[in-house]
């Protein structure tokens, strides 16, 4: 990885320049690993790196200290080149206790940097982690890894010796010691962290001072302690010029809605029921009362969805969000929006399942639910962002399509996109597509199910419009008049019309981008949060001269009109997914192509290495 060594004055330690590095902070739930990781991410962002992050935490709020299931971690990859994933194998691992050591050591590269906090390796913690003997005493550990035993607890305590804090409060500063140390190892600027500490503890000046002292002590320790012979730099990445910010998927979804509301001048009414990992969208929107958004924490998932539908009936942008279990509960309501032909936006932040499953872990197994998880023929538009930042655009796009076609639009995000972050080029809002809205007010010739010739959308009428009083509902209705109808041919016609409306959304889909040559041996087709892992794997194979290309689908229903043609230009089609093979089944059924899946359902993002290997295996299959 290190490709050059900077000559430094004798007093300084040599600095190696890397193109990228993968770091993971791991400790107990109470050790502040998420804060540490987020803060390191900000430092790397300030240094101009491209970044991808993977927070990973237990579902338990306060898991018992020291246990294996209570381990919380934050991983990031930062680089001077494009970074597509949080990384597969770790260049550096910081572990705060034996449980974290046990859970995470296997992911550290041989020769990688291993920073441990030995004072946490006492009998009690070793017992909890299931160690009969202290693994730090194993002499091979130092041979296999660059092991650094840093008594972060003791050193932090010492740095804060004269502070008027109790022992527990002092101990809680040790994560900033770790951050200071790792910031030195990777030459990250401390300024953003100093600012963040000041903001975070604005009301407790003694905590500001303590955490800053711990941070600086960690940094100084790296500089002066004999154990670190060198440190590393990662140059700024070449990224498109502009102003950047760090963006998580959930925040991007929320802000995309705000942008759509501002553009349309129509308020968003957002109905949600708390559920991991979707709740942050509700939290984020609830902060923005100055914007065109009204949030409603409903009594249950069904009320969240039906309130959104009520709002759409009233001429607002009705939006509801949940994760898989909640989407299942909303199914009947979504069907109502299908037949009432009202705009409705539904965010599904997929997580491991079935049932409660793995609430805090990621999965892509709700695709079939999004497409078919309702009674009868009830098609909806399904789209999927590929990166955290893309969530902004897809939320906006969902609103645009829902209004233009008077249909429900499901946005499939996932736990990885929701909590993961990336440096995000802040868009010029003027470049976003327009979202025209015309509420019908003309009485002459009005019928509730009169259709637009191009989109088949029915008119959107705000209650309060004189002369257009009308009734809609879940019962089958006659086309055009909207009167209740049980007539067999009318039902058949309405089933086809609702499907055709969704099908016509295909005219909105831009030409599919192919990463690679337009024909070849293997085409890798993905969707959603696997974008980074697939891109990294495909580009690695391409760099070796292999005939591999990739397309990443952002529109899943309808599928892009050019997709069938593209699929037929490659000898084999590989579909990596974090499910048992859902998109692959659709592609096979839709296009009669012999696509094969690559499926791992571990609650974790796919590793680019395993996709790379799957590509190679497929390449080896004889023609």
């Amino acid at each position: 990885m290190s490709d050059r060594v900077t000559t430094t004055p004798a007093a300084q330690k040599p600095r190696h320049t890397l193109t990228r590095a993968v770091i993971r902070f791991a400790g107990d739930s109470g050790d502040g690993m998420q804060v540490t990781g987020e803060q390191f991410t900000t430092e790397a962002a300030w240094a101009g790196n491209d970044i991808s992050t993977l927070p990973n935490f237990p579902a338990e709020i306060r898991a018992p200290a020291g246990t294996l299931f209570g381990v919380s971690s934050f991983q990031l990859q930062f680089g001077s080149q494009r970074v597509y994933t949080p990384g597969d194998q770790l260049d550096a691992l910081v572990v705060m206790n034996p449980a974290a050591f046990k859970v995470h050591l296997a992911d550290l590269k041989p020769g990688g940097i291993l920073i441990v906090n030995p004072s946490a390796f006492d009998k009690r913690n070793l017992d909890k982690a299931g160690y009969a003997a202290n693994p730090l005493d194993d002499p091979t550990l130092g041979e296999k890894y660059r092991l650094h035993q840093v008594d972060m607890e003791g050193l932090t305590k010492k740095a804060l010796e004269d502070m008027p804090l109790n022992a527990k409060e002092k101990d809680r500063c040790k994560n900033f010691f770790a951050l200071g140390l790792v910031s030195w190892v990777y030459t990250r600027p401390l300024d953003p962290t100093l600012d963040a500490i000041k903001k975070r503890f604005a009301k407790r000046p003694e905590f500001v001072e303590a955490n800053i002292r711990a941070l600086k002590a960690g940094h100084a320790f790296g500089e002066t302690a004999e154990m670190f012979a060198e440190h590393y730099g990662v140059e700024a990445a070449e990224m498109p010029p502009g102003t950047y910010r760090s963006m998580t998927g959930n925040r991007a979804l929320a802000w995309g809605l705000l942008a759509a509301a501002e553009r349309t001048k129509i308020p968003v009414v957002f109905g949600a029921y708390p559920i991991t990992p979707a709740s942050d969208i509700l939290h984020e929107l609830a902060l923005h009362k100055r914007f065109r958004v009204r949030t409603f924490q409903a009594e249950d998932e069904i009320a969240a969805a039906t309130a959104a539908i009520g709002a759409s009936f009233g001429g607002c942008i009705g939006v509801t969000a949940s994760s898989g279990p909640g989407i299942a509960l909303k199914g009947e309501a979504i069907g109502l929006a299908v037949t009432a032909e009202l705009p409705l936006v539904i965010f599904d932040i997929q997580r491991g399942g079935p049932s409660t499953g793995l609430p805090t872990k990621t999965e892509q197994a709700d695709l079939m639910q999004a497409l078919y998880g309702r009674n009868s023929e009830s098609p909806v538009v399904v789209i999927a962002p590929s990166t955290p930042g893309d969530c902004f655009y897809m939320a906006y796009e969902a609103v645009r399509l829902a209004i233009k076609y008077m249909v429900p639009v499901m946005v499939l995000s996932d736990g990885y996109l929701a909590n993961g972050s990336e440096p995000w080029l802040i868009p010029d809002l003027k470049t976003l597509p327009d979202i025209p809205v015309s509420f019908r007010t003309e009485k002459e010739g009005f019928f509730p199910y009169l259709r637009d010739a191009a989109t088949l959308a029915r008119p959107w009428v705000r209650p309060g419009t004189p002369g257009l009083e009308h009734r809609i509902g879940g019962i089958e209705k006659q086309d055009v008049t909207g009167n209740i109808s049980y007539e067999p041919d009318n039902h058949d016609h309405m089933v086809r019309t609702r499907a055709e409306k969704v099908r016509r959304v295909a005219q909105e889909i831009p030409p599919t981008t192919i990463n690679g040559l337009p024909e070849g041996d293997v085409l890798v087709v993905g969707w959603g949060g696997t974008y980074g892992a697939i891109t990294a794997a495909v580009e690695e194979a391409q760099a070796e001269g292999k005939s591999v290309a990739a397309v990443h689908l952002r529109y899943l229903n309808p599928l892009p009109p050019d997709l069938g043609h593209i699929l037929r230009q490659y000898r084999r089609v590989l579909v990596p997914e974090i499910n048992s093979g859902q998109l692959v089944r659709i592609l096979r059924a839709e296009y009669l192509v012999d696509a094969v899946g690559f499926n791992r359902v571990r609650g974790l993002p796919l590793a680019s290495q395993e996709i790379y290997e799957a590509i190679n295996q497929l390449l080896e299959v004889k023609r």
Partner: protein
Amino acid sequence: MGVPGATPKYTKKDFESDQDVRWCPGCGDYAILSAVQKMMPDLGIPREDIVFISGIGCSSRFPYYMNTYGFHTIHGRAPAVATGLKLARPELKIFVVTGDGDGLSIGGNHLLHVLRRNVDLTILLFNNRIYGLTKGQYSPTSELGKVTKSTPIGSADRPLSPCAFALAAGATFVARTVDRNIAHMEETLKRAAAHKGAAFVEILQNCNVYNDMAWGVLYDRESKALHELRLQHGQPLVFGPVDDRRGLVLEGVKPKVVKVKDVPESSLWVHDETDGGTALVLAQLVSPEYPIPIGVLASRPGDTTYEEILIQQEQKAVSDRGPGDIAKLLMSGDTWKIG
């Protein structure tokens, strides 16, 4: 929205839609529909600003027959749909029409929360103590031991009092009326519609096909005199034939039926609409041991509604920091420049 003061002079006919009414001949719903249509002109609200929202069941066909805006939604969810509509459009006058199955069984949770939040809605619950549209299964208000298709040897669950439910949920207006008493229905519905906040009206309604005469004691003149307790604010709770007046007295929180002539007048329980506690006692009186209270059980006008609180929060946020600007939001917090 119409211009205030310029509301057209409506008649009942203006609120009749062009749809064929499809309830069974003899259904109590006809009388309710007629009473609602008849009282609408008195509300003084432009027709286009009125919305009827319903769930599923016989009662829930109601919106189709009203010449207003209407939405026939899904089973039990009308209160939630109406909440969303109210959040979107607080200026609209919204009615929710539901039944004992729709509102208290599958939709019990939504009814609970819409009342608790005091969303400004007028909620009409038609209580016929049976599932009609699914052809006659017992409902959450059916009496214990009710023999129906799904309970051939009698139901095993105890009935719920809709008004007690509403009061316990914190409803700010709770009333009960009867489908066969047009004048009382109109008067009660008018008061409910005029109430700001969640107004709940239980309408005792006859299903002549699956549960005929469930409220029969209130239909026949003679038994009505014995069983109907007309509630009037500030008046003692008395009922019964002229020659044999009965009254209610409270012993602690326990109600007791007495002969009026046997007790001093001052000892009779005087109805106080503003007292939710005694209203809860009234709501739980069960025939034949007690009379059936009809009228406004509780009314607590002036409570802030759910949507008013939200709007106040938004107005304060805007007045404190100005309206939101998405471009500024995107640039807020930590940002950095490249190139």
